[in-house]
């Protein structure tokens, strides 16, 4: 891991009637690194994810500041440029597969759509890319499966499809917004293992957003703690656990059932 | 255009003639024609949509007809019979008006509902008998046309009173005429006198005499008084005081008008009993004809007017005694071609339409019998010309409807340079003959006529496109833009006298539909029509006037500016419980003799 940041942000987010949901938050992700962003519900984690993709306006919010991604300030990028970045260079894995997948579209078609957003390949090319991604996330490479609608597969499978869509174009950065929150414990572990494998194999940087410090402790290189709209702590995972600086972090760690062994998941 | 429609007349199948008895002084008291059997023409009921009441009148009746002596004698008789009033059958007559009456002032009447009410309530000086179409004395016992047609002198009936008891005198007549000709009143009835306001001189030399003098002669002046309801100059009830058989007792807007028997009505029957026989008339304001039919069948209504042929046949199956086909009415259907040089049409099409042979050929190509049979279920007749046989005096009985003869049509077209090739007709310059006919959308009978003409013309290689337009769009096209090729419309004759049709026949007139507003007559025959129409207008002798107008009808039949198609029959339904009913073709049809109508006992009680 070199020290050159893939992503470096300094962001504030306002909503109408709810100013400073995020207040001058600073964060960076290095290439191939997994950064965890931990904060309680409503602390602006998801807004941050959307702001990174410049899609915050869909939820009615407004972001200000800078998003440096590979030497570009995305805050100054036009919609056309952003479109070419979304999904291709920065991919997004949302939290609940049931509402993020289009119920009216077959899984294969949705993936093909995502592929065609950046590639105009032949039908065979599309199929190859889709199958590769499906394989990578450990789903059966099976036509019948791809012909299903989202309502016809399990939540865990749907979440993997979303991850497969995210890795289709081998993006440099993956933003995972609590991708495990709607899964059972075993599936959660599976997904985390999958992400960490993809991180290793594909060299993707991952910004992993969660409200649960414990679950990601063994998985992240660094952890940022978000509290009341501010990043109160942002350090190596081990350092955070061993000598938490901020009272909120201390409280978080104090609430944990026991000391957590790090590195066991890698 | 509406005015125009109202003016044109239509002819139809021959009408039975009746031996007319000369009217005498007893005429007003005699049972009006109710004894005449219905054998001559198929009887049906159905009141022709009310338009206007007037009928032209034989001008031979101008002379004084009634002798005052007899009238006086009768009046004495009448007075002595007042006590007998209670012996009348009574009862309530019920039927529908199809629209809200706009006014109860007899001088302001312009709509058909008000007109029907006026007929039943207002007293007039001279009555046009709706069956004989002749003049009868009413409030005037006699009259003379004076000053070479410029004036008329009335001798009034005496001992007559309004419905509130106010006595009637020459003063009331003078007051009525002053009001009528008051320009600020804008009385529609005054227009037919063609008199400009104050110029009418009104004199009352005696309490029972009135003389009117107009600035210019008025052709057929007497018949106009049939529409002048006499007002009371003194009655506190103003125009609501009536001299007719009934008076308006109650009006519930949107629902009904109730008429009550006028206890002072002057007329008596042969037995000397006071008329009318019915106590009350209830007029429902009802536009829904289906509801009307149901109520009629239930016995709730006594009369139905303007029955459609379909309804007529249906009703005939269920109540054969109730329906009456009165024979040809004053309503007809006709079509014409746009002959105006100003029309925005291709020059070759104008040539077709201006060709007499073309027009005659097309007239011969239309099967009028089929139209009557299929569209009107036999309740119509092929039309002869502008005047319906229902208009007894003015109808030219020498005219026959154009015969259906496709071979003759093709021969005529051949003469005009057209040729038929592979089922398609071409003109001399090889243009395929195709044109459109505009008619008003929503009129099913007219749409059927158009479709039948379409097939008739197809048989001689002409393609006809039927264009259904909204009424005002048609009016705009035929009178303003002149952007049409041919037009199919129906006409209702308002006025029996041809003088009212001046604005159609004169080539300079705006309602000269086929080529309006000509600076000078475009054709010799139009010039001849102009001359004949002017001649009949300035002539007072009825026989000579008729000779002029007969000639006009002949020219029209020859030159075919209008293709007269069918004359519709007047169809009415009269419940069997109504006695003495003798519906007339002229409005108000079934109630024209309302004072004589009576209801059978059980109905009267109901």
């Amino acid at each position, binding site marked *: 891991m070199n020290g050159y940041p893939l992503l470096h942000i300094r962001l504030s987010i306002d909503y109408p009637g709810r100013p400073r949901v995020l207040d001058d938050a600073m964060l960076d992700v290095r290439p191939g690194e997994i950064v965890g962003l931990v904060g309680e519900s409503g602390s602006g984690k998801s807004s941050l994810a*959307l702001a990174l993709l410049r*899609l915050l306006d*869909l*939820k009615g919010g407004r972001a200000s500041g800078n998003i440096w991604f590979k030497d570009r300030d995305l805050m100054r990028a036009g919609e056309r440029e952003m*479109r*070419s*970045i*979304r*999904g*291709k260079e920065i*991919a997004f894995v*949302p939290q*609940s597969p049931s*509402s*993020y*997948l*289009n*119920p*009216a*579209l077959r899984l294969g*078609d949705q993936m093909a*759509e*995502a592929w065609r*957003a*950046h590639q105009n390949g032949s039908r065979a090319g599309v199929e190859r890319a889709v199958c590769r991604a499906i394989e990578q996330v450990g789903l059966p490479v099976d036509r019948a499966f791809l012909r299903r*609608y989202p309502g016809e597969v399990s939540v865990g499978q749907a979440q993997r499809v979303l991850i497969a*869509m995210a890795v289709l174009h081998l993006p440099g950065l993956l933003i995972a917004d609590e991708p495990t929150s709607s899964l059972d414990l075993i599936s959660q572990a599976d997904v985390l293992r999958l992400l960490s494998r993809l991180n290793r194999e594909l060299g993707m940087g991952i910004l992993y957003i969660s409200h649960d410090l414990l679950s990601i402790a063994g998985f992240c290189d660094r952890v940022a703690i978000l509290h009341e709209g501010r990043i109160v702590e942002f350090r190596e995972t081990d350092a955070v656990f061993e000598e938490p600086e901020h009272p909120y972090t201390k409280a978080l760690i104090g609430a944990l059932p026991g000391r957590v062994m790090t590195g066991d998941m890698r | 255009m509406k005015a125009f429609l109202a003016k044109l007349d239509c002819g139809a199948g021959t009408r039975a003639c009746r031996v007319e008895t000369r009217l005498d002084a007893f005429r007003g008291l005699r049972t009006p024609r109710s004894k005449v059997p219905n054998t001559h023409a198929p009887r049906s009921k159905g009141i022709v949509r009310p338009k206007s009441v007037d009928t032209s009148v034989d001008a031979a009746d101008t002379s004084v007809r009634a002798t005052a002596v007899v009238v006086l004698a009768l009046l004495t008789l009448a007075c002595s019979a007042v006590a007998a009033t209670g012996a009348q059958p009574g009862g309530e007559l019920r039927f529908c008006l199809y629209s809200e009456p706009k006014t109860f002032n007899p001088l302001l009447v312009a709509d058909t509902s008000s007109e029907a009410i006026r007929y039943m309530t207002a007293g007039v000086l001279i009555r046009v008998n709706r069956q004989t179409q002749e003049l009868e004395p009413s409030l005037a016992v006699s009259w003379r046309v004076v000053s070479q047609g410029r004036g008329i002198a009335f001798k009034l009936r005496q001992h007559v009173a309004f419905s509130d008891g106010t006595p009637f005198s020459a003063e009331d007549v003078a007051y009525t005429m002053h009001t009528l000709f008051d320009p600020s009143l804008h009385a529609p009835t005054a227009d037919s006198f063609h008199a400009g306001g104050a110029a009418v001189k009104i004199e009352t030399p005696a309490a029972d005499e009135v003389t009117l003098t107009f600035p210019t002669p008025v052709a057929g002046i007497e018949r106009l008084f049939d529409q002048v309801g006499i007002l009371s100059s003194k009655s506190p009830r103003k125009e609501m005081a009536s001299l007719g058989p009934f008076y308006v007792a109650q009006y519930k807007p949107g629902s009904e008008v109730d008429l009550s028997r006028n206890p002072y009505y002057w007329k008596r029957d042969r037995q000397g009993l006071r008329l009318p026989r019915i106590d009350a008339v209830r007029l429902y304001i009802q536009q829904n*004809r289906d509801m009307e039919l149901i109520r009629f069948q239930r016995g709730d209504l006594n009369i139905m007017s303007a029955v459609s042929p*379909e*309804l007529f046949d*249906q009703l005939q199956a269920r109540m054969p005694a109730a329906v009456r086909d009165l024979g040809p009415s004053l309503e007809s259907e006709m079509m014409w071609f746009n002959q105006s040089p100003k029309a925005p049409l291709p020059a070759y099409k104008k040539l077709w339409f201006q060709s007499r042979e073309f027009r005659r050929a097309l007239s011969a190509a239309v099967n009028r019998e*089929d139209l009557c*049979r*299929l*569209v009107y279920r036999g309740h119509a007749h092929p039309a002869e010309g502008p005047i319906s046989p229902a208009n007894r005096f003015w109808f030219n009985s020498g005219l026959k409807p154009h015969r259906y003869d496709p071979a003759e049509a093709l021969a005529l077209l051949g003469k005009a340079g057209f040729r038929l090739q592979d089922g398609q007709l071409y003109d001399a310059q090889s243009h395929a003959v*195709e*044109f*459109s006919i*505009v008619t008003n*959308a929503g009129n*099913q009978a007219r*749409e*059927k006529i*158009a*479709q*039948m003409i*379409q*097939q008739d013309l197809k048989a001689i290689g002409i393609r006809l*496109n*039927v*264009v*259904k*337009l*909204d009424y005002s*769009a048609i009016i*705009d*096209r035929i009178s303003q833009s002149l*952007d*049409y*090729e041919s037009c199919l419309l129906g006409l209702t004759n308002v006025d029996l006298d041809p003088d009212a049709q001046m604005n159609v026949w004169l080539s300079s007139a705006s309602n000269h539909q086929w080529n309006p507003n000509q600076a000078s007559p475009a054709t010799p025959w139009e010039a001849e029509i102009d001359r004949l129409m002017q001649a009949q207008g300035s002539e007072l002798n009825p026989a000579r006037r008729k000779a002029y107008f007969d000639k006009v009808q002949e020219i029209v039949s020859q030159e075919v500016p209008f293709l007269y198609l069918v004359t519709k029959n007047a169809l009415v339904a009269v419940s069997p419980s109504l006695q003495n009913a003798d519906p007339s073709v002229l409005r108000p049809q079934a109630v024209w003799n309302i004072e004589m109508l009576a209801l059978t006992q059980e109905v009267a009680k109901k």
Partner: protein
Amino acid sequence: MKAIRYLAATLLLALLLAALWPGALTRTPYDRQFRELPNAPVSRQFPLGTDELGRDRLSRLLYGTRVSLLAAPAAALLSTILAALVGGLAGFLGGWFDRAAVALIDLMLSLPWLFLLIIVRAMLPLNVPALVSVLLTFGLIGLLGWPSAARIVRAGCRTLRCSDLVLQARACGLPRGRVLLKHVLPNVRPILTAQFRASIPIYILAEANLGLLGLGVADPLPSWGNLLRPLESGLAPDWAAWAPLILMLVVVSCLYLTQSSKVVVQ
């Protein structure tokens, strides 16, 4: 249920074939007036009798089926597409386009169409071939029928606009147009198909009403609309005169029955 669907589909197909080749079922021209046989009862020569002008009812019904069964769905399709486009774009894009579209919809719904159609008719040339009159009539119906449906589509798209599935599609880098087409509209498809099906009988009858304004299918070409006109008179006609209505009900029921049982309503 499946059997009924097949039956309905077969019936529809049979009707469609009859509509396409009416000549195969009748030899009598639809405009031939057998004037000696008006209102004829059912017979071998006239399986449905004749109308009041002596025209073969069966022939008119078959040719009328051709006009109505081909033109009314085409018009319904046109208006549904317009509703989807205007309503979809308005709801999905929001902003000034939405305001303009809503204003347009309100305007369309509040215009005095009776008078406008009269004016339209007045402006048309007089000599219009029957086929052109069919295209004109149904084209006009299709062009005017969309606003109320567009309003419903807009409401649907408006809620979808901020939905997670749109977010996901955008996050994959799909262009907005593509998102509208592939993700938003398929989710309002139930609205659109309902609109399409409901429009067909309405348009068939609307053609009859346009006939009252002089705009309908030109004589002597039959259509279900002008075949139904005699029923308006209130007189009880021959049972055969009801045939077009019965046929129309059959078609509409079949359309509903053949509908896929998969309901994809969100």
